[in-house]
């Protein structure tokens, strides 16, 4: 049995893209921004002790798999997540599920996926995609960050599902066993917005939320003490985490702005939410400007004005504080 009515959608982020496409396939029509927002996926964390390719982790969204988990917690979707002790079992199970006519989410490493542009293939282990059909040893894949669906051979797919290391996928496959089709989204929207605003404003640890942003700004202002080559790589890394690692740009702020707008419409064109959406949109723009400043600094032979970069990032943090306070206003109204 093969899937006939499957529809691929081009998304900004892999995990919210997979979940949106998957839920829609099973009758729950939620846009990617709606999935992202309902999962309270917007975040910020600067983790100097978690290294990726020698550089600290700077996350603009919640941890991998948290969208899958929060869809269950917040919407009552029931998901089955399966990992495997060896490749053969993982391969067989995938074929079995596809033969049953299911569409299946999988966690993979970008590096081993041959359809990725060569210059984008890095060892990043938490890329999500959807497998919806197979033709012998070729798998039809709906990779949310690609415009059209793609094809991947069995060997490459298996290698990428079973890569080891930080965030190792262990062959992870996931699919829903129950999808509610009649949901009152409004209370869930309110709750999920409140969670984002609160955790961004009030996280007690200095590495997350607004405090994490301040901490990163401080680190940037101290970069002049470091070797210039390292400083440039560090700055470039910030931009890559913001624009490239699984995102449609500006640290997921555009995606969340879209969610806020969609929510505003649901709440009878709520003005506070629409204003918040506009604010989030312009914060995204500011982050792009920050990225541009860094790109120019990297290219230039002149000394880098680290304080100006730190100041810019702090100004963005100030704007974020205003935004989250506005969102709390909406929640308490």
């Amino acid at each position: 049995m093969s899937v006939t009515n499957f529809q691929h959608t081009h998304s900004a982020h892999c995990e919210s893209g997979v979940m949106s496409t998957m839920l829609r396939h099973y009758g729950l029509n939620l846009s990617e921004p709606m999935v992202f927002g309902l999962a309270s996926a917007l975040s910020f964390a600067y983790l100097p002790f978690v290294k990726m390719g020698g550089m600290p982790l700077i996350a603009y969204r919640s941890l991998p798999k948290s969208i899958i988990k929060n869809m269950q917690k917040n919407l009552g979707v029931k998901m089955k997540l399966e990992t495997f002790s060896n490749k053969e079992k993982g391969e067989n199970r995938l074929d079995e599920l596809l033969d049953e006519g299911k569409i299946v989410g999988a966690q993979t490493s970008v590096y081993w996926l041959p359809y990725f542009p060569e210059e984008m293939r890095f060892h990043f282990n938490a890329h999500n995609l959807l497998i919806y059909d197979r033709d012998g040893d070729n798998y039809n894949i709906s990779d949310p960050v690609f415009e059209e669906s793609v094809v991947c051979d069995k060997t490459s797919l298996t290698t990428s599902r079973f890569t080891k290391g930080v965030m190792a996928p262990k062959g992870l496959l996931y699919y829903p066993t129950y999808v509610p089709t009649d949901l009152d989204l409004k209370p869930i929207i309110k709750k999920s917005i409140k969670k984002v605003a609160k955790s961004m404003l009030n996280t007690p640890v200095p590495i997350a939320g607004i405090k994490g942003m301040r901490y990163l700004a401080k680190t940037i202002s101290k970069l002049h003490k470091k070797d210039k080559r390292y400083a440039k790589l560090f700055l470039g890394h910030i931009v890559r985490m913001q624009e490239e690692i699984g995102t449609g740009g500006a640290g997921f702020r555009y995606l969340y702005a879209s969610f806020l707008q969609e929510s505003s419409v649901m709440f009878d064109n709520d003005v506070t939410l629409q204003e918040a959406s506009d604010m989030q949109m312009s914060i995204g723009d500011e982050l792009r400007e920050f990225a541009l400043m860094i790109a120019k600094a990297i290219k230039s032979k002149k000394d880098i004005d680290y304080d100006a970069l730190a100041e810019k990032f702090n100004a963005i943090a100030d704007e974020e504080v205003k935004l989250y306070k506005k969102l709390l206003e909406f929640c308490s109204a």
Partner: protein
Amino acid sequence: MDINSVPQDDSSTYAHNKKAIYAKSEDGSVKVVGSSGWDAEEIVTKQALNDLEEMAEEAYCEVKNGEKSPLYYHMYAIRMDLQILSDATSFFQWTIKRDFQPATFAKIKEKRLSVYAEVMGKTTKELKLLPEENYECN
């Protein structure tokens, strides 16, 4: 971002693919637009690639000069580093470093070599050789 300011810079890093960006259309609604690339992003992606490429080149020359085993070059050539290779193989970093020594690597057990081969997507034969590359070594 305004729908008309979504960059269309045809970045080589995208290889003619498009990335979805949420942007504001004329009527104020936020929609997905495909972006063919953005110069700022291309600069930082290439910076990271160049850094990896430089490490591969340095490693290549060290292997060629007999200071390191071919394994050392292959690690960088597939954009890995000691940390990633250690995670992937579950070998301790210090034991991998030992395999970077040509004398130790020459006596490596086939079983251990095949673990490297599997996680690096190479054959054991390939791992023992230094391929022809256009790197200039002193």
